[in-house]
Structure formats: C-alpha cells, structure tokens
C-alpha cells in the first residue's frame, strides 16, 4: 500500500526523516520503497488549459494546441490522441529538464513553431504510462507548478504489507508500529460526532442471518448531506495512496478506511429500498448488478447485504448500482461491518474482484474498530458534507470475537532466537504493540483484536524479535549438526556426466520441462503426457515425457540462429503418469548436429554421424564406470526407422539412441541431420561396475597380428569380432577394427575389414608358433562362420 510520509508524521509526531522511517519500518517487517521526486525535474512544468486544437498542416498524426497558462498562450505541437479542448494539462515550458535529462526547447517541427510539450506520465517520470497526456481536474488553477499540484514534495512510502499483517494496511496501524519503534506515546482516538436528537434506530434496523459470515454489522444514518468534491487535503492524501477522489461522501469512506483499515460503505438511504438491513447468503439462481454495471450470477458462496427483499450490495466486495451515492443523494446509510475473512475471499474470487475492501477483509479487519470507524466517518460527513448525524449506532454484534489469550514462556524467546532478552524488554515491546500482560513467571498475554495473526507463543516471539531487531541478534559462530552426512551417487553422477560431456565439447542446456501438446504427441505418441490444467500458453500445455523433446527445441533454436554445429546435453526429469504420484525418472539427453570438429587448416571437419554419437556414449560409459555400451537395433519413436537403437550395457538397457526421425525434424523446423541419445540415470547407476580393483600391469611383451578379410556387406564388424573373441582363447588381449574398405577390386556385394589383434600371456613371453596357431584358428573360424576370405 502507498501512504504519504506526512500523514504518518502527523499522527505520530515522530522526528524521523522519511528515509529513516522507511528504513525502520523495513527492518521491523514492513518493507517497501520510498517514492520521491526531484523538484528540479519539474521546474518550468506548470498547469495550462488547452484552448484551441488544430491539425498540423504538414503532419497527419500531429496537432497544434494553444495552451493558456493564464498569463500567456503557448503554441505547442501535440501527438496525443486523448488531447481535447478544455483540458487542464501539464505543460513543460522551454527551460524545463524532464527527469533531469530531457531538455525542452523552442523548436520548429515540420514548419510549425512549438514552444513546449504537453506531458504524459512517463515523460514526467511518474510512471511508465505513455497512453496519452495527463489531464487534471477541471477545477485545477492555471499556471501552478505541477510538482505542487501533484503534491510530489511529500515522499510516499510504497509498502509491501505481508498477508499476516492486515493491521498495517492503514495509517493508524503503521503509526502504532512507528510509536513502538521510536518509543513514543500516541493517541489514535478521535472526537465522537455531534448527534442530532433523532434516533438512527427509527430509520434502520439490522438483522444478521449468518453470524459466522458476518459477526458484526453497525449502521449510522447521516441526513441532509450535500454532495460535492472533498477538500483538497483529503484528495491529495487519497491520490498519494493511489485512490481516485470521487465525491465527499465516497472519499470520506475511503479516507477512513485508509486511516483505520475498516472498509465502509455509504448507501443512498432513500434508494436502499427498506428500513431494514438483512445480511444473508445469496441463493443459487440469484443475480446482482454491481456498481460498475456488471451483472453477476450469484449463489450461496456469496454473502449479500439486502433490504429484506432485494440484494443491495455484495458484502465486503462491492456495492450495487441501484443504491450508489449519486450527486442528488441527500441521506446516507453508513455501513461499518465485520465479515469473515474466508467468506469474503470466496465471494470475491467468485465475483472476480479484488477491491480495497475485499483485500482488507480477507486478511482480517479489527472487529473492535467497527464503531470507531463509523463514528469517524460520520463526524467527517458532518464536517465536510454538512450532514446531520442521527443519534446512536445501530450495532448488531451477532457473534462476539474475543481477544486471544496466549501464554509466553520468556525463556523460549532465548531458546528460539539465541539471544537473552530480559523480561522487562519483552514486556515493553509487547505492551507497546497493544498487548496486555500479566503473570510473574509465564506471561499471560491478551492480544488486541487488530492482530488476528497472533494466536500462539511463537507469534509473540516473532513480535519480540522484529521489534528488538533481527540485526541485534548475534550471529552463531559454530557449525552445528550431525558429523556424518552421506554423499549419494545419484548426486555425484551428475557432476561426472557434466565434466565428461563438457570435455567432449557438449554444452549444457536447460529445458523448461514443459512441452507443446501437438509436438510432444508427434514425438512420443505412445505415452499420454501429464496435462497442465492452467498453462500460460499452448507451448507449456504438457509435461515432457521424453528428453528428446527439449533437445530438439534447443537444437532448432540454435540451427535457426545459424549456430549450426550443435553439441548439447541436459540432465533432467521427464514426467510419466503413475498411480497417485507421477514417476519422474531423470535422464541425460544428448544431441549432435552439424560438423564433427571445427574448421582446421590441415583437414576439413566432416558431417557428424552415428559414430560420433557412439564415441560419446563409449566415453560416457568409460567415464562413469559402466564399462562398455552397445547399440542394438530397436524401434523407438522419435528416431529414424532405419537408425533407432537401444543402448545396452551388459544385460541392462540404459536408454535409446539414434538418428532423429526426419519427419520430426521438419516439425521442429530443423533442416539438418541430428543424432541424439537419452540415457536413464538410475539405470546407469545400476549398471556401474562398483568397486575399482587394481590389475597388475603385464610383465611379458605382446605380439600383434593383423587380419584383413573380405566378407558379404551384410556381415557386421560386431559379428566378426564376436567370432574372433570366441576363438582367441586366453591369449587374445584385444581386437580393434582399423579399416573398412569397399570398391576397388572388391566385388560390389562385398567389403573388406581389417582387424588388429594383440596377443599376450600373463605368465610368459609368447612364442611365435603359439600365436600363429591361435591366429590360424581365428581365420578358420571366420571362414566357416561368415565365408570370410583373407584379403591378398
């Protein structure tokens, strides 16, 4: 809420500057900013009246305004669509320096002289609003400094009042805080209105049908008011608080609300429709038109003010069109009531409003302040609108709200805060906040009704802490807690993967976790995603079921922005339906596209392919300690039907990999091949080899033999490797493919593969004939298994 410094200063008489006030409030729990303006930024900005408005002869969108400041008429070019003859506007004259930077000079624009500028709010630095020029009330005098007209000399505290502190939503409540912080006495009581001899109870009675929803309803009658503008001081305060002045009666209601926090409602008594206020819930099928002219379907969730027959207002949210105070209103029925917080919250949610009144009611207004607020408003109506206040308040207190009683063990203060605060200090703080305290050991504390948030001991400790000052609590110096806190592999494997993949040249991306329904289902038609019931937009309608979705979104962004060589990974969750709680398995997703390597003068980079992806997967497997992985043909949606694989580690499938489906690439607007993999973290952990055990280094030399063979093209290196290993016996140490060749003198349906075989024994130097024997056995086996033929 916004409140001018001068108002709080006036109530409390505190000697603090505005800065000190803001700082002290902020350090005791009422945070916010001080809004203030530099008078130099408003020099030569005065009020003027538009007396003539003509089209600019040489520009369609501009007009030439004659602005009268009372002393002189200035010719000013104006582009604002809302400018009209007769408006009183802020006029920046030559010499003005708006916001301290924008200097106003005499100038000629397309052949027409302009001697100033009519300003919008943003040009004056008041807000970001540039929708049109500012327009003042018709009664504003001319040639007045705009700085004064807007009351900008008075700093305004823009406060963020937390939802637990409804009492701080008003001047009196804030004054109470300031009085405790500054240790000064204040008196918030106001003079009671002078009453006439006629009794209000002869004019109105109040009946409450639902005492839980409306514990208290007080009414006053003020007769013979004269509707007109409220005085300037009141208008300025309302404006500073962000409330638009309307007329004296409405303004008084708002002013007293800003002063006391009690929302008030003024009905036109003669249009109320009866002499009886009945507070009851609406019935299903009822309708009601609020004072903004909107018709609402209402039901029993909505508490209404009725005249016994018809609905007149929604309780605590907004009045009705038919009973609104108008210029010809003479007699006022003033409502000051207490409504239940959650009833009003439900009402206003259903009606779709968040009004100053409902905002306060749903946070909790002081039931003990109902009468004082009615009296204060009635006194002001007599003073400022010439009204006659009838005798008595018609007060129906259907369900008395008692003051809360809370016990406080003073030693708990130290136990929770870690600082010794003596009993007297605790007592003084709480008493200053309006609590009554008795008891010698344990404090019995009676809490004022304006503090609905204080119901427990800990709430009182918080009061002590915030007034004592959190900065005055000494910082703990020792590290406390359990000596042993375990490290979990699920946490460290992410770091391992990040290091490995960064080393391989992959950049780490971060998907949103959301997915666009249509694209998500195209990618993964077999899983029904979890739907967001209130998404921000269609792009965020589902939770992702596959990492590949986010990988493709990111690849698409990069490729469209000409970052053509994409190596990205993300470690994140996908979301899958499962009984009452979804499953959220974590994956490491990779995507590759563009060139392998970067431009280099010795050799040119080549297009990425499945083997770069396989290399990365092998590296990951080695790095995290799951040994080796293999790709096994397996159809998975999202991958091309000719190149879709599962990633297998021993007997476990740890994920999928392959070339991204061509049709899918089109959907994601990607115009180059992409290769991707999705590895499930939990499966990788499960596949880990566990403890690393040292193996002694070989003591004896190895022998190397190469084999080059020609086989059918359909025979894979994997098949051949398997045969080689099976026949290599104990002495075969490793097998590596080092060449694949087609063409030349090799027939069309054949290919040549070359393997390098290393033989070694752990207990002796191998003799040539031993190696040759095994080598021959391998060759024979290749010949019989796959009709392999040695290449000459």
């Amino acid at each position: 809420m916004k409140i001018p410094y001068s108002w709080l200063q006036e109530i409390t008489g505190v000697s603090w500057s505005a800065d000190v006030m803001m700082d002290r409030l902020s350090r005791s729990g009422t945070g916010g900013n001080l809004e203030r303006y530099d008078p130099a930024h408003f020099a030569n900005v005065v009020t003027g009246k538009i007396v003539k408005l003509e089209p600019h002869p040489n520009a369609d969108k501009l007009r030439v305004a004659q602005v009268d400041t009372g002393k002189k008429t200035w010719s000013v070019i104006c582009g604002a669509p809302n400018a009209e003859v007769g408006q009183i506007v802020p006029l920046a004259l030559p010499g003005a320096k708006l916001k301290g930077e924008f200097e106003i000079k005499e100038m000629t624009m397309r052949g027409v002289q302009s001697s100033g500028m009519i300003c919008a709010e943003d040009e004056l630095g008041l807000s970001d609003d540039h929708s049109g020029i500012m327009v003042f009330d018709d009664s504003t005098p001319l040639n007045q400094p705009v700085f004064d007209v807007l009351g900008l000399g008075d700093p305004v505290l823009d406060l963020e009042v937390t939802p637990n502190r409804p009492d701080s939503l008003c001047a009196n409540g804030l004054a109470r805080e300031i009085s405790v912080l500054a240790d000064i006495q204040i008196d918030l009581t106001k003079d009671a209105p002078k009453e006439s001899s006629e009794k209000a109870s002869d004019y109105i009675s109040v009946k409450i049908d639902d005492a839980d929803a409306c514990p208290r309803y007080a009414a006053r009658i003020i007769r013979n008011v004269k509707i007109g503008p409220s005085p300037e001081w009141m208008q300025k305060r309302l404006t500073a608080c962000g409330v638009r002045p309307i007329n004296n009666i409405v303004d008084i209601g708002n002013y007293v609300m800003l002063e006391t926090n009690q929302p008030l409602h003024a009905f036109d008594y003669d249009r109320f429709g009866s002499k009886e206020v009945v507070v009851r819930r609406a019935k299903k099928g009822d309708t009601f038109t609020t004072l903004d002219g909107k018709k609402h379907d209402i039901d029993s969730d909505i508490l209404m003010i009725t005249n016994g027959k018809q609905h007149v207002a929604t309780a605590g949210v907004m009045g009705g069109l038919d009973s609104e105070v108008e210029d010809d209103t003479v007699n006022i029925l003033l409502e000051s009531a207490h409504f239940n917080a959650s009833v009003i919250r439900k009402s206003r949610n259903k009606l779709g409003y968040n009004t100053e009144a409902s905002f306060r009611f749903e946070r909790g207004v002081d039931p003990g302040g109902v009468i004082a607020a009615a009296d204060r408003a009635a006194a002001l109506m007599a003073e400022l609108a010439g009204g006659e206040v009838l005798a008595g308040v018609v007060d129906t207190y259907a369900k008395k709200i008692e003051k809360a009683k809370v016990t406080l063990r003073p030693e708990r203060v130290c136990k929770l805060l870690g600082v010794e605060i003596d009993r007297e200090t605790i007592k003084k703080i709480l008493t200053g906040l309006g609590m009554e305290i008795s008891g010698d050991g344990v404090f019995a504390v009676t809490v004022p009704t304006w503090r609905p948030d204080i119901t427990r001991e800990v709430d009182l400790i918080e009061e002590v802490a915030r007034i004592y000052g959190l900065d005055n609590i000494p910082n703990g110096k020792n590290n406390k807690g359990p000596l042993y806190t375990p490290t979990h592999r699920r946490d460290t494997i992410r770091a391992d993967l990040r290091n490995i993949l960064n080393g391989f040249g992959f950049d780490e991306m971060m998907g949103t976790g959301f997915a666009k329904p249509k694209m998500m289902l195209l990618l993964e038609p077999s899983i029904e995603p979890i739907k967001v019931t209130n998404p921000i937009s269609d792009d965020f309608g589902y939770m992702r079921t596959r990492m590949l979705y986010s990988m493709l979104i990111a690849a698409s962004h990069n490729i469209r922005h000409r970052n053509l060589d994409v190596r990205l990974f993300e470690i994140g969750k996908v979301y899958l339906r499962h009984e009452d709680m979804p499953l959220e398995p974590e994956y490491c997703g990779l995507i590759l596209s563009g060139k392998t390597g970067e431009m280099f003068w010795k050799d040119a980079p080549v297009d990425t392919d499945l083997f770069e992806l396989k290399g990365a997967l092998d590296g990951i497997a080695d790095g995290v300690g799951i040994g080796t992985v293999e790709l096994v043909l397996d159809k998975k949606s999202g991958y091309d039907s000719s190149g879709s694989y599962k990633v297998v580690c021993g007997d476990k499938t740890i994920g999928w990999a392959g070339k991204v489906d061509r049709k899918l690439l089109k959907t994601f607007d990607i115009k180059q091949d992409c290769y991707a993999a999705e590895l499930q973290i939990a499966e990788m952990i499960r596949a880990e080899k566990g403890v690393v055990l040292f193996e002694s280094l070989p003591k004896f030399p190895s022998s190397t033999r190469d084999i080059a063979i020609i086989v059918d093209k359909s025979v894979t290196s994997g098949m051949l490797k398997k045969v080689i290993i099976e026949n290599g016996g104990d002495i075969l140490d490793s097998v590596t493919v080092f060449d694949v060749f087609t063409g030349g003198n090799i027939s069309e349906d054949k290919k040549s593969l070359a393997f390098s075989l290393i033989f070694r024994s752990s207990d002796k130097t191998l003799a040539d004939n031993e190696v040759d024997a095994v080598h021959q056995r391998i060759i024979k086996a290749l010949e019989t298994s796959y009709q392999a033929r040695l290449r000459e």
Partner: protein
Amino acid sequence: MTVIEQLQRIESEATDRVSSAKTVEELEALRIAYLGKKGELTSILRGLKELSADEKREVGGKANQFKADLETRIKDKKEQLADEVAIDPAFDYTLPGRPIRIGHRNPVTLVMDQIVGIFQRMGFEIATGPDIEKDYYNFEALNFPPDHPARDEQDTFYVEGGLLLRTHTSGVQVREFEKRKPPVKIIAPGRVFRNEAVDAGHFCVFHQVEGFYVDTEVTFGDLKGVLEAFCYELFGEGLKLKFRPSFFPFTEPSAEVDVQCFLCGGKGCPLCKYEGWIEILGCGMIDPEVFKAAGYNPDEVTGYAFGLGIERVACLKYRINDIRLLYENDTRFIKQFR
C-alpha cells in the same frame, strides 16, 4: 718465451677459440691447428725429448692433460652444434592449433553446484523431492491453510489428478522429516514452477535451493551465522547482511535477507538499483505447525530453514539482464560460462 709460457698461451687461446666456434667445420680446423700432425700442441709434445728431465716432467704432464681436455672440449662442442637445428623460416608456427572443442556449463547448474557445495561443506546432506507435488507437501503441511491469501503470492500451476507443480522446494522439509529423526540437516536443490507473467525478470520455471536444520538447540542466531558464512563464500568475505522481518507461513519468525551489493560494496550502483543492498533469500525458524505435521514435538526441537532462487543469483553474478536467456539454450550464450 719458455715452453711453459708457450703452453699457457696455447691453452688460453685454444679454450677461447673453441668456445666461440660456431660451426662443426670451424672446430675441425681448430682441432687440426692444435692437435693435428703439425698442430701447435703436437709440436710441443714432440719437442719434449729435447728438454731436461725436470722440464720434461713438468711440461709433459701439463701438455698431456691439456691435450686430453681440448680433445673432449672440441668433441662436446661438435655434438652440441650438431644438435642445434637451424630455424626453418618456412615453418609457420603461428598457424592455429588443432581445435579441441570444450563444452560449457549452464550458468544455472554452475551456480546451483556452487551453492550446494558450500552447504555440503558445512555438513548439509542433499535430498530432493518431486517436481509434481501434492498440495499437502507444497502448502498444507507448510501451514498454508486452504483458502489463505498467502497462497495467492505463489501463482500455482495445477496438473491433472489434483496435483500441482511445486512452487518452492520447501515441500522437501516435511517429506524428509517424515523419513528421519532429528538431527536433520539438509540442502534440497530443485526445479520449481510459478504461473506468472513471463518477462525479463520472471520465468515460469526456475530453480531453488532449500536448506534446513532441525535439532534440539537451533536458534535464529545459528541461522544468521550460517547464512553469513554462505554469503561470504558466494559473494565475498566481509559483506554485511541485513535481516528484514517478513512473512512465510512455514517459518516464524521469518526474514528476508539482503546482502550488501557485492559490486559496489554498498555505495549504490545499477546492479543494486542504487540501494546498496541486494535481496538474496528468505529464511526463518521452522513454524511449530510444520513440526506438528511432520510428527516432531515443537517443544523438543527447533530448526531453521532458508530458500533462495538460483536463477536470480546467476543473473546477479553474471549480470544477465534477461532471465529468459537461461532457457533459450543459445550456444553463443552458454559458451560464455565455465
């Protein structure tokens, strides 16, 4: 000149000439000049027989010693010169090296790891909770009554099945309390969601780190100490903290913490919007209602909790002016971080 004097002259002259020789050929010429058949030293050695027995002994010893030295010296120098390969002016060593592509860390996980690491070193154990959460853990058990205005401050995404996307990582508190007995000292990083208008300062997804410690004697002073140590390491030693009382349903007392601007040291600059302070986290003493929900006795244990947003810290730290960049995944952006 005596023979000795002659020998001394040859010795110093030969030593100088050998050490200043630049080529193998030069050295060979020197060898011949001194040690060759007609070499100066050779002549002296040949003339020994004409000397007296005493002179023979003195000169002979020295000359032979010197001969051996000079031979070694010339040989060593020849080897040294042979190893020196002349610079080839045609070899362009300024050509770029073979590129090794290094990938880059995402600023979000970088900052998250840094923050979590600091708390791990202080003895916090990592725990996590689900992103798709029950109302109970996200709100109710954290003392957000149904239909309370405090829920408005956390615009919530709902999903089917009566679940929601967690709005903070604080839900991990009750989940862990249910599984453990005090002392419990946990740091819980994770992804959270808020249904609010997306702009340069807000995104519908971000990350938080929630920390909490419950034991028999945990005080607000302990909380202040831990957060001070944390901020020293994250932002710089000696920076002041400001604790402003605030409101969170699940802590009482609650506070928001500002750290003195680490860029200007509190003098005021664009980063801190000329305030000198930067709001960094929310914290407080765990509310007794939360302990009750978890089955802990609030008279027996106390505890603190704190939470901070990772993206906010990342934006401050790297002066990123638009939070949306963090989720656009442009490699030109990511490559700036390490």
